[in-house]
């Protein structure tokens, strides 16, 4: 635990972006998420930590309704984004997902060119009026994805030909190209080497300025490095949620303490 640099950071209280109340998730008969209530702030990196199978990814996927694609999955309770219930019958999940971008565990660029990867989202949402506009959006997204300099000379090369870390940053660029308000990241660095991880973490910190970022991670060090708020999940319960500094230095719940000191998990 000696590399857990918990930097002194200024913690602002931002306004609440996502508010979940009494969320229950069932996979068939399996009760995966139990009574989770949490308020996630805007312009903040929130980390979900916990042992495997604790439900942190499941909860993340509730926030953009990716769980809808699983037939047996059932969600109850309220999740509000900016005060609007995203599980309301009137909400189209497709519209929601344009607002809540997602980056997955394994880099999954489309088997198309780098340009087309980034341009796809803006194209289907009609964000660009013309080709020059689209070029701009793509360039901006790639710049904010911290990958522009590496790919600017080969925008039409296949995205699958990049290295793992570059692919993941491309996926982040693709996610931010649609101008989301929330960015969900499901273990974005678990398939990357330490150098690529450092680059992605740097990028996450950068993204905090504009988005509410929620990141699921297996690495407590990573949570400590990138997040301002941390939520600890265990067996489907949200055990503890608070300032990252507090969670790691002075946890309230004994389970949290056991986990971060390596006794469970």
């Amino acid at each position: 635990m000696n590399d857990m640099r918990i930097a002194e950071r200024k913690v602002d209280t931002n306004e609440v972006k996502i508010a979940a109340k009494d969320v229950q998730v069932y996979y068939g008969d399996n009760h995966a998420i139990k009574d989770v209530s949490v308020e996630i702030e805007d312009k903040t990196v929130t980390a979900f930590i916990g042992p495997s199978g604790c439900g942190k990814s499941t909860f993340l996927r509730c926030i953009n309704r990716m769980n809808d694609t699983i037939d047996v999955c059932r969600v109850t309770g309220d999740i509000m984004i900016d005060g609007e219930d995203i599980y309301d019958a009137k909400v189209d999940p497709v519209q929601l997902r344009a607002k809540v971008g997602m980056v997955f565990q394994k880099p999954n660029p489309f088997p198309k060119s780098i340009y087309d990867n980034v341009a796809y989202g803006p194209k289907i949402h009609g964000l660009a009026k013309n080709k020059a506009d689209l070029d701009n959006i793509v360039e901006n997204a790639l710049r904010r994805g911290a990958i522009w300099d590496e790919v600017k000379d080969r925008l039409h090369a296949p995205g699958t030909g990049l290295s793992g870390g570059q692919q993941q940053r491309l996926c982040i660029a693709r996610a931010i190209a649609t101008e989301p308000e929330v960015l969900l990241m499901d273990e974005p660095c678990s398939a990357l080497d330490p150098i690529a991880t450092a680059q992605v973490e740097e990028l996450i910190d950068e993204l905090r300025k504009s988005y509410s970022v929620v990141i699921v991670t297996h690495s407590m060090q990573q949570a400590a490095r990138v997040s301002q708020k941390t939520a600890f999940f265990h067996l489907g319960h949200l055990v503890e949620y608070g300032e990252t500094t507090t969670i790691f230095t002075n946890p309230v719940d004994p389970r949290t303490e056991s986990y971060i000191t390596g006794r469970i998990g």
Partner: protein
Amino acid sequence: MTDTSMTPAAAAPEKSSLLVQDARTRKRNAAETRFRMYGMAAIAVGLLFLVFLFTSILRSGLPAFTQTVVEIEFTLTQEQFDTAESKMLKTGEYQKIFVNALSGQLNASGLDVDFDNKAIERIVGKPGGTIRSFFLENPDRIGTPVSFELAASSRVDGYLNGRITRDTLVDSRFLMATDLDLVDALQDAGIVKGAFNWNFITGTDSGVDNPGGAGLGASVIGSFFMMLVVLFLSLPIGVAASIYLEEFAPKNRWTDLIEVNISNLAAVPSIVFGILGLAVFIQFAGFPQSAPLVGGLVLTLMTLPTIIISTRASLAAVPPSIRDAALGVGASKMQSVFHHVLPLAMPGILTGTIIGLAQALGETAPLLLIGMVGFVAREYPETFVGGFTDANSAMPAQIYTWASRADPGFYEKAWGGIIILLLFLITMNAIAVLLRRRFERRW
């Protein structure tokens, strides 16, 4: 008590050398070598059968592509024409002129063989009619030398191809031993020779007594129109059904039932589809018998399961991460399928479709029951629509028809037809392989 046996010296296993194989390793290696041999033997047997199949097909079928012809050049004068046209038996007169020209050429090459009109008829049939109709159509050629190529009878053809030898020849009113002397002499004089039989590829089927004039052309057209029907029905229906089942349909008892039934449909004997086609399309819906339209509909039913199964397999092979990626940037379900999943599944779908079409192209049993087998396709369809609705035969049906005719000349034609059918199938499979290579993308 047992301490002695626990001393380190006794407990240490015997040290083995890496340079010596122990018994277990030897046994495993021997098993592996044996297995490789079995594999190679299996492949060798397969190849042997393939070689055997191809040699027998080529040996029996290639003669169908050559036709023995009697080529003779002579000049018909206006006087001869007028005389012949004034007679009662006009074609007989022309035949006399032909025979004179023939013996003239034989004598010119220094060969002296006796023959009569009957022998000529046994060798080339009655050439008078052909000659007369040529000059009636081209009166300007009277007085100029004209070269005639007349198809020899199937027995003469068989003699030159080795199907009939002097030993196996039974004297009959169709061919006699003395005729063979004449054929030999004509061959020496260069009058009788083998020529490539274009008529076999472009011509239409002949009657049961004329294997020499039989061609596969009309049934190739029949098969072509059937394949058009199959392609334009089974591809869209099959792909739409698979996309719905694989990507959109909820997984419940109903979709399970549909899935099982599609798999079962693929295993239904093709003759069952034939009788279904007869009952539904011809007897109930009143479509014309023997029409490629009906054949195509029946084959569509047969091809659908193949296409659905292969399409679903290639859709399922597209990694779910691609779907997640598309949904994650806010694509709708349909956009994710049509923009990302379908292009990746395309090579598999195309391959499945072409394999399904190739299978349909070679299918005979369903065509038996809708009247395409046994139909003598003497004419090409006249219009495009007629191609679908006019009675016609199809390649495998034509082969089946020929194989069941009595004249041994048709047996040869059946083998020749198989060669053409195989060429089509090989071409289609090659296209499938090419398309797969062309569209294959890695992710």
